[in-house]
């Protein structure tokens, strides 16, 4: 089954998403900020990265850019609930190379759909 790296600074949300994914048979690794996320990806090169766009330390966009600079084939799904005057990070994440986007709050179905679409994306 596919391996997912989940990068989000919200502990409660992160363990919820992990539960959802594990129930569907995904193997999940968690990271709570961008720096940790980059380190984990270097070790594991998971099939997919679920990346929150608004985080302390290294923010989502910078993490995304760094990640794709080193690993152009990484499949990143950007997650965001909008923030700080900007209505949404998601169109920007798409332009920066994310294969999919997930608007928070999302349902389990939406999460599974976007994972399936990202895994099926032939361009990576």
């Amino acid at each position, binding site marked *: 089954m596919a391996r997912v790296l989940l990068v989000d600074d919200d502990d409660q*949300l992160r363990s919820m998403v992990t*539960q959802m994914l594990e129930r569907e048979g995904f193997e999940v690794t968690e990271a709570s900020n961008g720096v940790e996320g980059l380190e984990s990806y270097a070790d594991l090169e998971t099939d997919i990265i679920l990346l929150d766009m608004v985080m302390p330390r290294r923010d989502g966009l910078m993490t995304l850019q760094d990640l794709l600079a080193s690993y152009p084939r990484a499949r990143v799904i950007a997650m965001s609930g909008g923030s700080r005057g900007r209505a949404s990070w998601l169109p920007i994440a798409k332009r920066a190379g994310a294969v999919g986007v997930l608007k928070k709050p999302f349902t389990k179905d939406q999460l599974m759909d976007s994972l399936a679409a990202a895994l099926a994306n032939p361009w990576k």
Partner: protein
Amino acid sequence: MINSQQNRRTPKSYDRLRDLFFRDIEILLIEDSAVDQVVFCRYVERSQMPFVVTAVGSLAEAREKLANKHFDIIVADYYLPDGVCLELGIIFYEYPVVVMTGGGDEKIAVGVMKAGAKDYLIKGTGSGALKMLPLTLENVLIRHHAEREREELEARADEMQKMESLGRLAGGIAHDFNNILGSIIGYTELAVEDVEEDSITRRNLQEVLIAAQRASHLVEQILAYTRDSAEERVRVDLVEVLDEVMNMLAHSIPKNVEIEIIRQVDYAYVHGNETNLYQVVMNLITNGIQAMEAEGGILKIRMMEIIQGRKPMICVEISDQGCGINRDHLERIFEPFFTTKAPGKGTGMGLAAVQGIVEYHNGRIDVSSQVGVGSVFTLQLPSDLND
């Protein structure tokens, strides 16, 4: 001599007032002397200005008339059978009032100006003041109009400032709030999976999900109201937007509501954010349908191009035959969180979001309504002139 002067001035004044009012100007004359009423009307008529006079003889009658009809200006005699005109109190601040006094009552004149009157006229033969009547009325009306406009602009600027801070606040908490909602929705879904299908617990958990979705919708609307300017804008055809909205609604329109679409243009290009504009049209049409849910009726949607101050604008007029909106509510209808719907039925952000989006697109939204007859929302957006 007097005549020729009048002739030269009259057409111009007529135009100035017409530009401001687009219609006849309603004067309420409060004057107990029948003779003075006739004299007044004669001077008004001779001016050839677009005035219509309604005359009453006492304060009580005046109050009754004012409660039932709109007037543009009040002309009141100082002494009336049931008191002095100052007893009209707050009316001096709601309407432009011109007070007439007898000769030699300059002290009274000063008093009425302090009370909020816009001008005064000295009656009586030889004073010549009544000859000035049309000019006085015209000046008072124009001044009053300008004052009101200024007040409105100030109120609008205030409102925009309030909204800006609300927007900053909303933008600041949106991320955290959506994360929290994400946890609520996600954990509830996990719990739903774990309980028996027909159990009460499951049904209750489903309610938690519905509530959380409502909260999420509310945050979205607040954000839409104070949209960030980095948002993507493209050339949007409102004809297509309308078609899409109608498709979306096709199955949810109640049987007693008929939709009539009058399109006077083939294309209606504006420059803007498609999602936001869709939200605007959707919101206005759903409101119209909801207003007629109980009694039924025809929802008329008219789309056309008009010229506003030399600029072509796309205009969408949505008129319903619903219950209408009373005057107090009409004033507040675009205010955030203002709703007349039952708790849980409306967020109070729908029309506020509409106004926010429309203003952000350099357009305007107007509403007129009559209780028991229906409401008309008029949306105007600048045409996109690029090919």
